[in-house]
């Protein structure tokens, strides 16, 4: 074969067969090697398209389908006469979609001018949030109508700037009824899973208790978008359903008056309609503006509220626990009359000091009240009278009557965080010292704790002839269209274990306390209406202060006044509690008078 290989031209025309054989063999090897990568491609395709196909289908849908939540309006809250206490207002929010911007700096400059912001501030927000250029960056929440109009007018120059509108909870008369209405807060992660779309949820008060009714149902819009996130078409829409409206038993005017009367003090007022247990006013002071919670409350602002020594977030009317002090004498008197310890006319001796087993027990009136019956004892709040009947009654009876009067138990008001208070039982102490029994009888016992609401409810029951109601705060629930969803009935909890004679005597005592000269509650007297009431002074420290000595605020006594009016046919039962108010008669009673006066005007 060598003779073929000696010239280029020869090779061109006449390749040696074995030389081509080698090439062909190798080409065939290459062909078989080449099959492999194709098989790899096909298997990856099979894996992606057939095995993982559904996952990618889902991913592609998430690309082009956007769910735009449509927030439902929260239900409106009205007072008993249809006056708005909480409603919804449009919230305007300025956002920028970075992708749509023509010039970042230019737009930021113009926008800053219109909104009274710093250009740098806008640019910073854009920088922080624009990792996804299609996602709206919130530049400012809660923009007022004027700014919105100004921006709307210059829309053409402000490409990429958009105005979003959302319904937002608003309380038009802050801080009116702040504790009662409660506030909204952002949902936690778990809660978001429960309800879709809406990110605010009732955190306290009515907002929390009736959240399910108020919330409504968020709707949503399914939008087909392109790669820029621009809407191409709407695939489907579910209208949001507005929440239900609540009609409260609250009287807005009375609530206002009560709140004003507590201005600058710590305390609580509860007013109840004795005929049915409707709450007419429920006040805790200091108050707060519930609107701040629907805005962006900063950590510092929240901490300030939370650590305020006045505890503005605590609703004292339902969660504040105090000793009832002399207001408890209503219970002791009723128990004694009912148990036959005394009769209405029975007189006991008060000499200012009551010596028992060698210990002197004193009345607040050092000179003593002389011979005194139960009615006067209530009117003058004589301690020694109640020591004496208390000793006979014993802990068991006092405890039993307290419970039947609704103490130590939840009243069942439709508000979260209500406290049940404390009523001691005999078994709590191995041995009750006489002093402890005496203290219990006049409501100063350490283990006796009540809420202002419990006392108001108690007085209402005494006033209405013995029916203990479950307080009612919400009368009706209506749909946004006004259709009645649910009427909440008046609910009786039970009857006081007292005859009408007993209650008549007690009520007489309460009337005298206000209307008799020298009665402890005389400062609550009204010319137009006959008021009945009882004072109470919860001794914060057991210590005598010298006359004229300046007592530190935190050591001052709590002042109580419970009342009802008119005496003959009661329309309102009232509790006023002033923390560290020093004297029920001198501080709480005038406040009660103010509230009652306005109520009967």
């Amino acid at each position, binding site marked *: 074969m060598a003779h073929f290989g000696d010239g280029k031209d020869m090779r061109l025309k006449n390749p040696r067969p074995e030389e081509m054989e080698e090439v062909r063999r190798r080409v065939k090897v290459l062909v078989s090697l*080449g099959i492999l*990568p194709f098989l790899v491609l096909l298997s990856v395709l099979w894996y992606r398209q057939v095995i993982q196909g559904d996952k*990618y289908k889902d991913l592609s849908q998430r*690309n082009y389908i956007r769910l735009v939540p449509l927030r439902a309006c929260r239900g409106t809250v009205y007072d008993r006469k249809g006056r708005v206490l909480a409603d919804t207002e449009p919230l305007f929010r300025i956002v920028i979609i970075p992708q749509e911007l023509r010039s970042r700096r230019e737009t930021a400059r113009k926008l800053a001018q219109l909104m009274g912001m710093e250009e740098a501030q806008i640019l910073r927000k854009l920088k922080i949030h624009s990792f996804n250029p299609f996602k709206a960056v919130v530049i400012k929440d809660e923009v007022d109508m004027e700014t919105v109009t100004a921006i709307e007018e210059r829309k053409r120059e402000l490409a990429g700037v958009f105005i979003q509108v959302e319904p937002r909870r608003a309380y038009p008369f802050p801080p009116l009824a702040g504790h009662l209405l409660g506030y909204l807060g952002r949902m936690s992660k778990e809660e978001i899973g429960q309800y879709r779309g809406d990110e605010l949820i009732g955190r306290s008060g009515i907002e929390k208790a009736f959240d399910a009714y108020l919330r409504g149902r968020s709707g949503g819009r399914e939008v087909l*978008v392109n790669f820029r996130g621009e809407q191409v078409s709407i695939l489907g829409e579910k209208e949001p359903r507005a929440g239900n409206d609540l009609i409260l038993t609250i009287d807005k005017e009375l609530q206002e008056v009560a709140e004003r009367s507590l201005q600058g003090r710590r305390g609580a007022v509860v007013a109840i309609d004795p005929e049915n247990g409707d709450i007419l006013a429920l006040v805790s002071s200091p108050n707060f503006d519930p609107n701040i919670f629907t805005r962006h409350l900063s950590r510092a602002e929240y901490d300030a509220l939370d650590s305020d020594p006045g505890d503005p977030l605590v609703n004292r009317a339902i969660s504040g626990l105090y000793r009832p002090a002399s207001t408890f004498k209503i219970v002791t008197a009723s128990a004694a009359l009912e148990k036959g310890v005394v009769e209405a006319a029975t007189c006991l001796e008060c000499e200012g000091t009551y010596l028992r087993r060698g210990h002197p027990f004193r009345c607040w009136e050092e000179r003593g009240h002389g011979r005194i019956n139960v009615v006067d004892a209530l009117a003058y709040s004589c301690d020694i009278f109640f020591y004496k009947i208390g000793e006979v009654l014993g802990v068991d009876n006092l405890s039993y009557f307290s419970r039947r009067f609704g103490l130590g138990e939840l009243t069942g008001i439709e508000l979260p965080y209500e406290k049940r208070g404390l009523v001691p039982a005999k078994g709590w102490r191995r041995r009750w010292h006489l002093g402890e029994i005496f203290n219990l009888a006049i409501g100063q016992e350490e283990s006796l704790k009540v809420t202002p609401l419990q006392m108001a409810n108690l007085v209402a029951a005494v006033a209405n002839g013995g029916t203990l109601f479950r307080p009612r705060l919400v009368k009706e629930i209506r749909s946004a269209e006004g259709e009645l969803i649910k009427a909440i009935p008046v609910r009786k909890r039970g009857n006081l274990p007292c005859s009408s004679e007993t209650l008549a005597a007690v009520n007489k005592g309460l009337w005298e306390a206000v209307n008799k000269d020298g009665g402890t509650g005389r400062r609550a007297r009204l010319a137009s209406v006959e008021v009945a009431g009882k004072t109470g002074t919860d001794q914060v420290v057991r210590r005598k202060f010298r006359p004229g000595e300046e007592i530190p605020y935190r050591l001052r006594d709590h002042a109580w006044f419970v009342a009802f009016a008119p005496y003959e046919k009661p329309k309102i039962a009232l509790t006023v509690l002033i923390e560290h108010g020093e004297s029920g008669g001198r501080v709480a009673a005038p406040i009660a008078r103010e509230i009652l006066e306005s109520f009967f005007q």
Partner: protein
Amino acid sequence: MIDRRLLKNFDWPLFLITLLIALIGIAMIYSASQYRGQFLSSSKLTYPLRQLIWIGAGLAALLAVIVVNYQTLIKYAYSLYFFNLILLILVLIFGRVAGGAQRWLRLGLFSFQPSELAKIVIIISLARYLRDKEAQVKGAKGLAVSFCLVLFPLILILRQPHLGTAFLLLPILFVMLYAAGAKGRHLAVIILIGLLVIAPLGYHFLLKDYQKERLSVFLNPNLDPLGKGYSLNQSRIAIGSGRFWGKGWLGGTQTQLHFLTAQYTDFIFSVVGEEWGFLGAFITLSLYAALLWRGMRVAVQAKDRAGALLAVGLCAMIALEILINVGMTIGIMPVTGLPLPLLSYGGSSLLTTMLSIGLVLNIQMRRFMF
């Protein structure tokens, strides 16, 4: 010059498969360029029509290259080689800059990429060299010279830079060396050294930042899903969401809502995968496989070493382009900017591929001519 024996040996299946794939390309480009707003000024038919014109031009080139005996090309291989080197230098001096790279040379009305032509010219030159130096291929010198033949244009192409094309050349070289009879052992050692030493060095000194980014994003596309990894992720989603049957022509959401990038050029296969599903992808790949099989058949049946090596080189080029491009769209290859032969929109790539197939047909036609 064309006699009947030539026509008798015309490989019709190869030609028709080529045409079929190109027509599938038209359908895909039509679908991929529907997105309005992207091309406000142009009608929906602009891109498919332009591609049709390119196919016509490609066919003309294919027929033209058939007329000339490939052995004439082999004869003038080195002249072509130097001419091409000059073009590659010219493009670095006068070339039009587009997308950060200087790849285009303007010739009157047309612009073209010398690097595309370079691929064919280098293959012709290698065929020529390897035909002549059959014995040397088994030794160091032959390997070194072949390597140098590739190296000069490769460096020039890297300078543009056109990474995809540049690195396409090395595997083509190895395939041709193997076919020409180089010792498998030698090739294996060279490839190993190349991977272990030159690749890391090249990574540091030759690659530009954006190229490095592409590589790191390829290794972990979730690094930056909205930025550099975006195209890869979206392409994968497009193909995967096509599932077995596909979403239907014009029905791919990834395509029609333009989540894909470069969807009528480099990522055209993502459109196939999304709208026609696994079935469409399988058929498309099968057509490519058939095309390559016909091409390799030409290599086997070629009457001389030059023809066989030329056919092998050209088939290797097309095969590699397919593997790299499809591999990229399904996320197993880095983004290199290589189009899919015959399917992607674009004249340069189409002309080059048609020209290559014309050469292969040329070899087949003349297998009995001495």
